[in-house]
């Protein structure tokens, strides 16, 4: 009975997992495949990518040609359900409405959470990224080395399917043989970027994304992932056979009905359910981890969204994997006489050191790409190639004025025509209309490229979240209030992105749509808007300055774990999802081991 209502749950579980996205999916998968009885609680509704994904729908079939609206900010066909920058009836507040102090929080209320629509970019943190303070004196070191996490990166890549290549570049780890799938062929525009960027000394290499460029190796991978566990191997082999390779069409952000990319709902949850060890309750809004007189967590309280009724369910272990900020919110709202400042918060660090990714973009037009012959350029839907951070030496020599790096995501090509195809092009056409305008649109279609930087933010004291003393959501649960501030490192980095992208566009013989912004405060995207928010319950080696130990186990409550991005100590330029999954797998292995030893 995998999907259960609040009334049909068992009376107790080995583990409760709060959240069903990358962290919740991975935690539940690892636990269930090794025999633990798990209850997953998801605040949003049940969601089935196989039947609900609008795969080949064209913009003319959608309202308003599919453009984003406040109801669906990333476009009508974006996979997000009941979410976006605002969730109806579930506000959050900001300490400041100034641009510089602005934080935005993207949420989804659906099974699988944000993994249903994410960009699928799957980069490993490198050795430097775990020891940032030792290298430049800023931020913190992780209580982990790359070598501790590497075996779990291997496993996650084998399980979910990630394409990429091994290039042997600094702080850009290679994967062991057999881990990565072959990268897709680049587009014409990708190859022009690669050729011209290299002339500027900027490396361009295959991207890493969780998209199946070929079927998974169902004969060998299950044994590598679950040695000695024949049942798990059999379940996984069957499930891998049920995932199709990429169709080379349809945007990944809509989700994938043939399961050719990673989303928790198509990769983690099906085998976990097939094990018979997973129960899932959707529409279950968890608001509190309850603690017994012994100081240990004994379960969670939640509201059933369909009836508004409150429930409590018990387990030996509780894992928070609700997304960094939501997990923080639950910890802070779980305050009681024993834990007056919130649960697991004896350090006072719950909510602190919230980080996002530095983002900045430039768009340009490239005459060389005008009037190309018809080409199908849907490809892998992006990041066939990318630029890893390359200025380590200059940074070490103090030449850049900012301490951490960024990678470059770029794209172009003859994409499905939509609102943006012919909008705002009078900077090229001189305001043509009539037959000349139609000729101009044909000429310029497919000749645009964009560059987006994704850079590391250093944790600081001004960026944190706390419980708003007044505001509650429609369920009566106190909401988060965000504080935000950038340092000069991020602002200077964003300005550097602008100049670099403009240089590349010019090296391509093109011109940028707008002049580069030299003021970092104008170049940088608002906090939270890159949707890489991490931190808030950082791990560490010292209970006085961190919330969890290196196993994602809270220092204060022995059987309470946080396996989402909240435990991040730094936020490398590498997109966080792959690292979230690797750490969640590692934590779940640790929980299984301790449960076997009867310590949990």
């Amino acid at each position, binding site marked *: 009975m995998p999907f259960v209502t609040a009334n049909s749950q068992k009376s107790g579980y080995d583990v409760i997992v709060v959240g069903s996205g990358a962290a919740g999916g991975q935690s539940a998968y690892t636990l269930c495949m090794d025999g633990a009885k798990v209850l997953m609680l998801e605040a949003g509704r049940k969601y089935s990518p196989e039947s609900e994904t609008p795969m080949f729908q064209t913009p003319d079939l959608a309202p308003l040609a599919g453009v984003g609206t406040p*109801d669906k900010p990333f476009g009508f066909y974006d996979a997000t359900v009941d979410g976006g920058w605002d*969730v109806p009836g579930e506000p959050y507040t900001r300490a400041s409405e100034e641009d510089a102090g602005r934080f935005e929080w993207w949420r989804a209320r659906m099974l699988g959470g944000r993994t249903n629509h994410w960009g699928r970019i799957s980069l490993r943190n490198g050795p430097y990224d775990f020891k940032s303070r030792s290298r430049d004196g800023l931020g913190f070191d992780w209580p982990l080395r790359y070598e501790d996490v590497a075996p779990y990166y291997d496993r996650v890549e084998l399980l979910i399917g990630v394409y990429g290549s091994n290039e042997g570049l600094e702080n850009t780890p290679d994967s062991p043989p057999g881990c990565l799938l072959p990268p897709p*062929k680049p*587009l014409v525009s990708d190859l022009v970027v690669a050729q011209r960027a290299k002339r500027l000394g900027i490396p361009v290499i295959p991207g890493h994304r969780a998209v199946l460029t070929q079927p998974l190796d169902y004969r060998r991978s299950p044994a590598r992932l679950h040695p000695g566990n024949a049942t798990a191997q059999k379940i996984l082999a069957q499930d891998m056979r049920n995932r199709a390779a990429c169709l080379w069409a349809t945007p990944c952000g809509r989700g994938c009905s043939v399961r050719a990319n990673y989303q928790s709902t198509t990769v983690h949850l099906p085998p976990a359910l097939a094990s018979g060890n997973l129960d899932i309750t959707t529409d279950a809004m968890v608001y509190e981890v309850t603690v017994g007189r012994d100081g240990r967590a004994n379960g969670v309280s939640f509201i059933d969204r369909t009836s508004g009724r409150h429930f409590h369910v018990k387990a030996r272990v509780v894992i928070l994997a609700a997304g960094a900020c939501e997990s923080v919110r639950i910890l802070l709202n779980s305050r009681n006489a024993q834990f007056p400042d919130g649960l697991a918060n004896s350090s006072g660090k719950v909510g602190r050191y919230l980080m996002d990714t530095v983002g900045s973009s430039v768009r340009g037009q490239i005459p060389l790409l005008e009037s190309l012959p018809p080409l199908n350029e*849907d490809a892998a839907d992006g990041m066939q190639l990318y630029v890893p951070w390359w200025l380590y030496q200059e940074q070490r020599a103090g030449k850049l004025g900012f301490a951490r790096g960024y990678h470059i995501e770029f794209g172009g090509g003859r994409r499905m025509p939509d609102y943006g195809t012919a909008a705002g092009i009078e900077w090229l056409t001189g305001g043509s209309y009539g037959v000349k*305008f*139609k000729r101009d649109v*044909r000429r310029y279609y497919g000749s645009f490229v964009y560059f987006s930087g994704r850079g590391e933010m250093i944790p600081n004291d001004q960026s944190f979240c706390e419980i708003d003393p007044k505001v509650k959501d429609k369920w009566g649960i106190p909401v988060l209030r965000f504080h935000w501030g950038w340092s000069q490192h991020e602002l200077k980095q964003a300005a550097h992105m602008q100049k670099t992208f403009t240089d590349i566009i010019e090296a391509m013989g093109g011109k940028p749509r707008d002049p580069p912004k030299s003021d970092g405060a104008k170049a940088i995207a608002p906090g939270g808007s890159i949707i890489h928010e991490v931190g808030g319950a950082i791990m560490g080696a010292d209970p006085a300055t961190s919330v969890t130990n290196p196993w994602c186990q809270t220092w204060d409550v022995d059987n309470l774990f946080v396996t989402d991005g909240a435990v991040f100590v730094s936020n490398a330029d590498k997109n966080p999802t792959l690292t979230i999954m690797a750490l969640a797998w590692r934590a779940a292995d640790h929980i299984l081991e301790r449960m076997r030893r009867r310590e949990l």
Partner: protein
Amino acid sequence: MDRRTTLKWVLAAGAAWPHLHGRGARADAAPAAQGYGTDPNLATNYRPGELWPLTLTVAERRLAGILSDLIIPADDHSPSASAVGVVEFIDEWVSAPYPSHQRDRGIVQGGFAWLDGEAARRFGREFADLDAASQHGICDEICDKSRATAALDAAAHFFALYRDLTAAGFYSTPVGRDDLKFIGNVPLARFEGPPAALLKALGLP
């Protein structure tokens, strides 16, 4: 969005057209208060008017069609904008309840009124009744924001928006995709990348 916010947007947009009023939507056809919500059915095909009522008047729709076809007329490659439903698309757009659409509604209705006012001033007739040369004469002065005189700034912003909307309505249809020779959105067994001959012609490795 509540009614008060809607009104605020409309008034803010209307403020760009201080001397022009009276050509607004019918009083009984105010835009709907609700959008499609945060969990719409993605598998259905939507037609303009299904989710919220269309609100442009008959006269506005006539002008909308004429202006759309000035921007995207029929040519050797494809039919005109109005022939593929662009008027319905624009009506859906300016009738939508979202704040940015309400702002666009004010700009579009203000622009329509300006065109008629300009046609009346120069030729003593409505814009829709002018011959093509006279219509072009007016449009030529507002088709490029960077060249328009300060007095025509609001009209040029209107024209830029209207051209974007016309193009969005046109190129998002099957006809528009064919015009651009878009051949994607079909399942492929393999993705082979660009042909070698093309790469060679572009000087790429």
